[in-house]
């Protein structure tokens, strides 16, 4: 917990994100047909999903920890992790949707990756609904931890298996012959912005989560 209260990584986060926003809009990018300048969305959209996965994984770890040894603090970290992850998931959907409007011409299409994202968001909303429907604190913590493990594994399996099914093709960059993230990352200019951007956004997600966690601790202390 010492690490969470240290301030050096928050400074790092701010520096990286300022760099991302400034360099992300100004640095030269490869000129590809259709994509043009929308390729800059890589610095924002992809990072949102990275941050989301990071924070959901932290939440999963603390849910398992809670099941092994029921401590209130593990529950706080797990549940606030989910709440923070949902913010990033929604931002990921919004940035992706805007991008899709300009390149594919539609806000939403029936695509394996998009379905995966939708399922993820829905199953974590279900987590929130489940929590709000149970009154007893310990019961709430235990049952939602069980659900969290269940949902995380199902989500992971879905995201991994589904795009590999025969006959399922995706328009999403990185699939179906479209140039993906690896092809862009080969470009030197994009790489020097993208990697700091990922670190910056992940740090931001950790920061938001840590504030949420501390807030929740204070709330529960006042309550008791």
């Amino acid at each position, binding site marked *: 917990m010492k690490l969470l209260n240290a301030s050096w990584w928050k400074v790092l986060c701010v520096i990286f994100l300022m760099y991302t926003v400034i360099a992300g809009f100004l640095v030269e990018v490869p000129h590809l047909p259709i994509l043009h300048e929308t390729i800059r969305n890589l610095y924002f959209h992809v990072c949102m999903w990275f941050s989301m996965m990071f924070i959901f994984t932290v939440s999963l770890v603390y849910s398992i920890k809670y099941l092994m040894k029921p401590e209130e603090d593990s529950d706080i970290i797990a549940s606030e992790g989910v709440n923070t992850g949902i913010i990033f998931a929604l931002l990921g959907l919004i940035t992706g949707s805007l991008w899709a409007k300009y390149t594919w011409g539609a806000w939403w299409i029936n695509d394996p990756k998009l379905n995966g994202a939708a399922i993820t968001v*829905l199953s974590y909303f279900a987590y929130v609904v489940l929590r709000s*429907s149970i009154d007893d604190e310990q019961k709430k913590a*235990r*049952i939602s931890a069980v659900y969290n493990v269940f949902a995380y*594994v199902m989500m992971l399996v879905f995201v991994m298996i*589904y795009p590999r099914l025969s*006959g399922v093709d995706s328009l999403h960059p990185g699939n179906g012959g479209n140039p993906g993230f690896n092809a862009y990352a080969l470009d030197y200019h994009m790489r020097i912005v993208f990697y700091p951007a990922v670190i910056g956004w992940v740090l931001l997600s950790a920061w938001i989560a840590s504030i949420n966690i501390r807030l929740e601790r204070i709330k529960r202390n006042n309550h008791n």
Partner: protein
Amino acid sequence: MRHELRSRRSWLAILLYIASTVYITYLAFQHDLDPVTWNALFWILIIFISMFAASGSFAGREGEMLYIYTLVSPRKFIMARLLYNGIFMLLVSIAAYIGYSFFAGNPVGNIVLFMASMLLAVWGISSLLTMAFAISGKGGGGFTLMAVISFPLLVPLLITAQHVSSISMQAGGDNYVGSLAALFALDAIIAALCYLLFPYLWRD
């Protein structure tokens, strides 16, 4: 553990439920169904029937559960439950398939493949719903909570199953082994999760 078999009432209820839902879909579509619609409708039917069938597994048995609680370990209990619900749902889905093809026609070309996908999918659906019912039952929520929890988690199974069954309707079924393996893997993962997580729902 197979004391469920005694409740014949639920068998009759489920058969009636299948008959009426299938008949309603038949009335709603006056003309012949093309294979794509047939497939979509069939899986929607399966979801509703399995929701109905699985709802009986934990509801209204608080006293009985307390009695079982003293007898067996939670792992044994959930395995027996999965086995029973799985077999029950297999029979129910076969009945639904027969009823559905009686009214709406049967566009399936490769019956063996279709049956295999149906059996694997239904097995997965029934174990997932069993777990979802256990969670929502402990949560004190009713059917709504159950639906909210289970639908997002059901989608992977349904999409994979629908994919395989749509292959089974084309003449030359190509490359279905991977999808069947995916279904089987999903089933195994769900069963493993139930086995690992159910004890935490059990003690109270």
